[in-house]
């Protein structure tokens, strides 16, 4: 029997039982749609986090005291501003080095107050990280050198304290000390769960005096290019180790952060896809079940086809194609539904979703495979039917 003919017969058979075919397909449709949506959400989340990490700036190296691993509490820093100068010397460009000492403090303007992260920084921050101002100016070198009480507010801090009014030029207090607002950051959103619009940048010298410390929490270096990151990292850690014997320092790159996060999210996406895969499997069992019913119902037809010369293989192929047609058609519809649902989720909820071609290819491939796997047994049963018995069936 020609293949095209077998397809025609399979399509006819499915059309003969439209409601049943649709209900059988529903299992596969739901399974495939679930795989597509969940993989899209997993992938979207991963992409969003990658964007956030990359959005910090490019070729970044972050130096922290202590052993750094994701989730561990940071050690108390023993670095100070002289270490920053030493690192700047290694890098050879002060503009490529940023620094921070951070603390949570109450920020107030008039009778409104809010709790914000105070970052003591130097004027190079916008050159190292991606930060842009909505209004005013950023800190200058002389602000840092002379410990001026000036502040640049994060978008949310400015909005909380001043609403729609222009914050630039206004007075605020940080932990009770008066500061003048010289700039407001553009809105940035979250990075790795940290609200970056809830920051206030002040000169590090001012911050250290405010906090009664001379420590520096972390140093960030923007390498000139990707190739130099590792070399730079080794030289900086060696230098800091020499300056602070007995203290360990570590440097993490964006790639390392992405690597760890990517692994976690990869596993998560895999687990989600596997759970959705189970529903696809259940759909496959449904297909198998219905195909067995179909073989039984059409025993007479099978007998007749055999009598006029159909070989066992011809009958087997006919029923196998029917099962594959059911699941691939269901797969296509499920893909469409899954894409639609993913787009709706991405548009209407904060959960990101990204459709990837491989998840579509996988879902389609699996649904076709399900058709073959779960169609084989009914097809073999049909092919092996004894024509004498089949013809006698009424």
């Amino acid at each position: 029997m020609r293949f095209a003919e077998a397809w025609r017969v399979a399509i006819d058979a499915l059309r003969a039982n439209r409601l049943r075919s649709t209900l059988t397909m529903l299992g596969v449709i739901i399974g495939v749609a679930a795989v597509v949506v969940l993989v899209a959400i997993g992938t979207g989340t991963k992409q969003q986090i990658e964007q956030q990490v990359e959005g910090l700036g490019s070729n970044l190296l972050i130096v922290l005291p202590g052993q750094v691993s994701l989730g561990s509490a940071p050690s108390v820093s023993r670095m100070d501003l002289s270490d920053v100068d030493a690192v700047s010397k290694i890098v050879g460009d002060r503009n490529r080095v940023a620094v921070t000492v951070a603390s949570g403090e109450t920020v107030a303007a008039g009778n409104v107050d809010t709790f914000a992260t105070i970052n003591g920084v130097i004027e190079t921050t916008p050159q190292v990280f991606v930060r842009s101002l909505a209004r005013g100016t950023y800190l200058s070198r002389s602000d840092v050198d002379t410990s001026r009480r000036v502040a640049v507010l994060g978008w949310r801090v400015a909005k909380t304290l001043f609403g729609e009014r222009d914050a630039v030029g206004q007075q605020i207090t940080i932990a009770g000390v008066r500061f003048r607002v010289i700039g407001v950051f553009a809105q940035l959103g979250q990075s790795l769960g940290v609200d970056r619009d809830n920051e206030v940048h002040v000169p590090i010298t001012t911050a250290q005096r405010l906090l009664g410390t001379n420590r520096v929490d972390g140093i960030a270096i923007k390498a000139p290019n990707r190739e130099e990151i590792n070399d730079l990292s080794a030289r900086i850690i060696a230098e800091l180790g020499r300056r602070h014997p007995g203290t360990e320092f570590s440097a993490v790159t964006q790639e390392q952060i992405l690597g760890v996060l990517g692994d976690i999210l990869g596993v998560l996406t895999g687990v989600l896809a596997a759970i959705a895969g189970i529903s696809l499997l259940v759909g496959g069992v449904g297909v198998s079940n219905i195909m067995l019913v179909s073989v039984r119902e059409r025993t007479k037809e099978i007998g007749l086809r055999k009598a006029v010369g159909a070989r066992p293989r011809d009958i087997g192929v006919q029923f196998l194609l029917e099962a594959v047609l059911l699941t691939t058609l269901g797969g296509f519809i499920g893909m469409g539904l899954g894409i639609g649902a993913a787009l709706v989720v991405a548009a209407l909820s904060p959960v990101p979703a990204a459709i990837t071609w491989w998840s579509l290819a996988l879902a389609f491939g699996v649904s076709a495979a399900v058709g073959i796997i779960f169609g084989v047994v009914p097809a073999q049963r049909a092919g092996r039917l004894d024509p004498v018995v089949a013809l006698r069936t009424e």
Partner: protein
Amino acid sequence: MTAALLARDVTREYALDGVTVPALRGVSFTVDAGDYVAIIGPSGSGKSTLMHLLGGLDRPTTGTLEIGGRDVSGLDPQDLAKLRNETIGFVFQSFHLLARTSAVDNVALPLVYRGMRASERRRRAAAMLERVGLGHRLDHRPNQLSGGEQQRVAIARALVTDPQVLLADEPTGNLDTRNGQAVLALLEALNGEQGVALVVVTHDNEVADRAHRKIVMRDGEIVPAS
């Protein structure tokens, strides 16, 4: 010249719940090309079993059975299917037409399993329907045809492959007398014109008497015609 059908000491036993039941106890006869034979006997006489064997739907337990000159004992299900397709045409009591399929596609069905192109299949099937007087009903479905017409579609399907033997199992059983006569007349005409051997299985003496030769079955054996 080889016989269209040749049976020599053919037996067929069935195993039912571990008990061996003989359905045929050693049957020998030949049907020559163009012959017209009736196999007659009461139900349980083994005539249906014999028909299944003669049609290549089943193989004998012992003995030799040749269909179109080929011994079926060594044939596997694939070969048997090919042999049926090329050598045998079946006509059943209950027509066995595919319900959702037009007359012309029903007739063309055996040609599907020859891998023939659709246009050629349709041409041959239409010509065959024309021959059985249904040239005006090509695209009707079985439920739009009378019983007599349905059986004529089935006859056209049996003959479209140009077989050596036409096996008709109670071809008039589901028809009224007039339509039954017409179907028999058509089968006999085709037997005469195309030289296809005609074997009619029946329990009806009136039908059997029209054949050139009668094979009378009783309890799995051929008994002399009374």
